[in-house]
């Protein structure tokens, strides 16, 4: 507080620490990053919890997300308004869930949200097609895409409604060897 500006009160930091997988230092760093994204929008002083959001386009330009095929979906699913505008809370939330220490179950929940492009709480065929096209940069032919999506649904769909509910998804994803190991 001497030469340094107060960004958060101690209580705020403690609260963030309890609500995320981050330490105080990391939260301050996150704030730094957040501030960097839009210096004119984000105040340095967060003690009075200003109501500031940063639009999707700016968030997506972060190097952490820049190459991710699902970057828009990630940001959207963590934003409270669903349109990709992130408040600092959402921002911290996003990185907390994506952090290494977050448990599998939590990640599965958010993964499901991310892959659910049309936000209907089901992964239907069109969700999968979008996922696949993003994943392969649309280098597969439409027939191949259809085949893969059908196969994927067939594999994971337990209740036979030809779309994946979260239960289906969780059952499948928690057995995946590459999911958070």
């Amino acid at each position, binding site marked *: 507080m001497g030469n340094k500006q107060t960004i958060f009160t101690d209580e705020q930091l403690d*609260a963030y620490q309890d*609500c995320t*997988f981050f330490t105080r230092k990391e939260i301050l760093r996150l704030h730094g990053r957040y501030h960097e994204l839009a210096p004119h929008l984000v105040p340095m002083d967060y003690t009075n919890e200003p109501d500031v959001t940063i639009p999707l386009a700016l968030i997506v330009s972060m*190097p952490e997300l820049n*190459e991710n095929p699902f970057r828009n979906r990630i940001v959207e699913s963590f934003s409270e308004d669903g349109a990709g505008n992130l408040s600092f809370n959402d921002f911290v939330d996003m990185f907390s869930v994506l952090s290494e220490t977050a448990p599998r179950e939590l990640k599965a929940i958010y*993964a499901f949200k991310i892959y659910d492009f049309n936000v209907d709480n089901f992964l239907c065929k069109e969700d999968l097609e979008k996922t696949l096209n993003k994943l392969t940069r649309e280098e597969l032919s439409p027939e191949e895409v259809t085949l893969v999506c059908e196969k*994927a649904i067939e*594999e994971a769909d337990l209740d036979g409604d030809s779309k994946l509910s979260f239960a289906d998804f969780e059952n499948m994803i928690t057995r*995946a060897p*590459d999911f958070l190991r």
Partner: protein
Amino acid sequence: MPRKSDVGAKIEDVGIEIDGDVSDSEDDTSRRRGNRRPTAGRGGARGRGKKPADEDEEDEEEEEAPRNRRGANKKKAAKSRDTDDESEDDTPKRRQGRAANKGAANKKKGGKAQDNDEDSEEEKGNKRNKKGATGKKGKEEETKDKKGDAKGKGKGKEKEDEKDKKKKKKKKKESSSDTDSNTNSEEESMSEGEMERLKEEVEEKKKVIAIMRNKPWRMKRRLVHLKECQEFVDKFEGALGKGKGRKFYAYKVMMTKVLMGLPYGSIPRKTVPRAEQSTAQDYSVLMDFNVAQFITCDHFFLPQGYCKYSVLFYGYYNNQRTIGLLKFRLPLSYLMVGVGTFGYSLMVVIRTMAKNADVGGGDGDDGEFTFAWKMFTSWDYLIGNAETADNKYASITTSFKESIVDEQENQKDENIHLRRFLRVLANFMIICCLGGSGYLIFFVVKRSQEFANRDDLSWYEKNELELIMSLLGLVCPPLFETIAELEEYHPRIALKWQLGRIFALFLGNLYTFLFALFDEVNNKLEEEVSIRNASIWAQKEYYANFTLYNNDTDTTPPPMDPSDVIRGPCWETAVGIEFVKLTVSDIQVTYLTILIGDFARAVIVRFLNYCWCWDLEATYPSYGEFDISGNVLGLVFNQGMIWMGAFYAPGLVGINVLRLLSSMYYQCWAVMATNVPHERVFKASKSNNFYMGLLLLILFLSLLPVVYTIMTLPPSFDCGPFSGKAKMFDVIMETIDLDLPAFLGTLMGYAANPGLIIPAVLLMVLAIYYLNSVSEAYQHANAELKKKMQMARDEEKNRRNNTESTDQVMKDLEDLLPNRSLLPPAPPPETGGKSTKVRPGTAGKDVNLQKDVSLSSPNPNARGAVTRPPGPRGPGPLPGNGQQGPGGGPGRGRGRGQPPPRR
């Protein structure tokens, strides 16, 4: 009082506690209780005044609903002032409440527990609560409850809010009253219970806070919720500050710290320097005396003359039984550390494998979710580099295409005989390679033994063995890869084969080397016997001198003519030296390979490309790929060498650590600077247990020779910690005899008796057999269940996608009803078509066909869908039906269909 729902009951509980706390006016409490639910009554019942009367009841209750306890304590204090009559009134209510509480998954507060006994029970109850909390539902409910507790906001019950506030106030009052009422012992115990309960609650809140981050909520909600919890904790934690529980907790923490700290702190730190001190003398002595004599294996890298007598090797440690004040038993600890290392490594490897198997429990069936996994888990969210991302996209696309092709051409397998022949041929060639390399190593080792007696060796001759082994490791794997192309395995399987073969090569080489080494050791042992007698007097003299000057460390023993000191060959050190040489040459070869194979190649490709007639980067030489699996294998093998050599060259571990550290950075640089990524990426996680299995195998195989030498070969008579003993493990016997009480010695004697050991081994074998069969049974059951699940899924799918087939079964059943035959059958040709569609397998079989035709006739769906009759069936088997046409007699089709018994 009307019973309320569970939730209601819970809420009530909260209220009840408050009631209980309100000790001021009985009327108040009772009224409230009345207003509230039965649980409230229960809480009230717990009142102190009741106690004596209630004891019995309470006992019962405890058995029934131990979980309810927690809340109980709260009340206690307040309750004690309640009157007996109230308690009587309450009893029935209480029971009801209890039942309700039981029903509710999370019991928080019943009221009760007044004795210390009860307190302990309460703890149990709390534990249960905690357990319950781990379940998701339990958690949610609990958190809800807590919310209610803290503020009542979550439930939006204002009443509760009020109650909470009251409660809090009460709490303070109570805490003060606790201190006031110290005179009464009973009351004191209650206040303790109160503390316990409060503490529990606070702990629970804390737990909620701790798992807050795991909740899939918006941050805002989390923050709000957190605040509520924290306020609660803050309010009550202060009151707990002086509680005994806290002191006890602090004590516990302290104790664990002390206990955990103990092994690290005292013993090794104090003794190791002494050990070094005492052996340092040996070092100077040995160096002075023997440098000239023992330059047998001067490695180009190691200054062997000095190193041989350094701390790196077995020979450096002396056989003084105890060292220093603490009586550090060097020989004993040497043996124990040597053997313990193996034990520990085994444990770690096996635990890791078990954990992997556990985690991967579901994914034993690889094929189940191929596409789904590929789709949802193939992206690496850590990628932040554009180039890497491009590679990843390409690799994902490739893998999808591969899977599609696999899927499409699953069954295609032409000319299986040629393929089999080729595979056999490939295996034959590889076995030849393996045998050849084994023989080569054996030959070289033999030759090196001849060389050992000569002095005029060239550099090559000195290091022939290591060079040959490294070269084999360099040449053979690519050779195998070339040969493996004959086999046309799927890439992943091919990779495993390849790794298995390289592993066999390494292992074969290592073992050949080892056997040759044993030959040498045996030679040395024979040699030693002859030397020993001759040297005994010299030894005596030597040690006499040594001890004479031992007091004064600065003075070296009087120079003796080196030829006078006849020293044994110290085979242990020789073995250690071999391993160190092997490791060092391995390091060199690895580094040189990277430098030449990757770096030089990359430089050439990059810069010669400007003036070359074809595209070097895109076509032939291209850049190297980082061989992940090969490198992992290298690590595994290297680890095996360390395990084997560490007993004879303890310093090998240090060398290896340095090697691993440096090679990590070196290889990291090489990868980033000179290599291109794999076209096809194999996830290491998939074959985790494959590598761990290799590690386990090599651990076992390296365990064998070491344990063999420890148990059978006599140690050198004049070097190492076991010198002078007939066998190395005599150290243990000696320790038992001298340092342990006599009865333990006899006990050990019995334990070591074959009469005990054999049954023990037998028992273990049987246990293994039993566990094995149990696990097999489980596996079987698992497979069955899986099959059932699969069937259920298929069934479900069929029902949805393909209603006809399930209808078919229904129709079969319906057909058995006699009056059904009166219904008009569907037009035969159409039904025929339908049936073929539904079950193509039956086409062409007359009986089934007919049956199908008739059976499926009532299916309304069938009519529109089928456009033409199936080829084979049309005229032959169905003349009657055909004639009848769609409007055929009602009974005929049916009549025909029925007679042929189904299967």
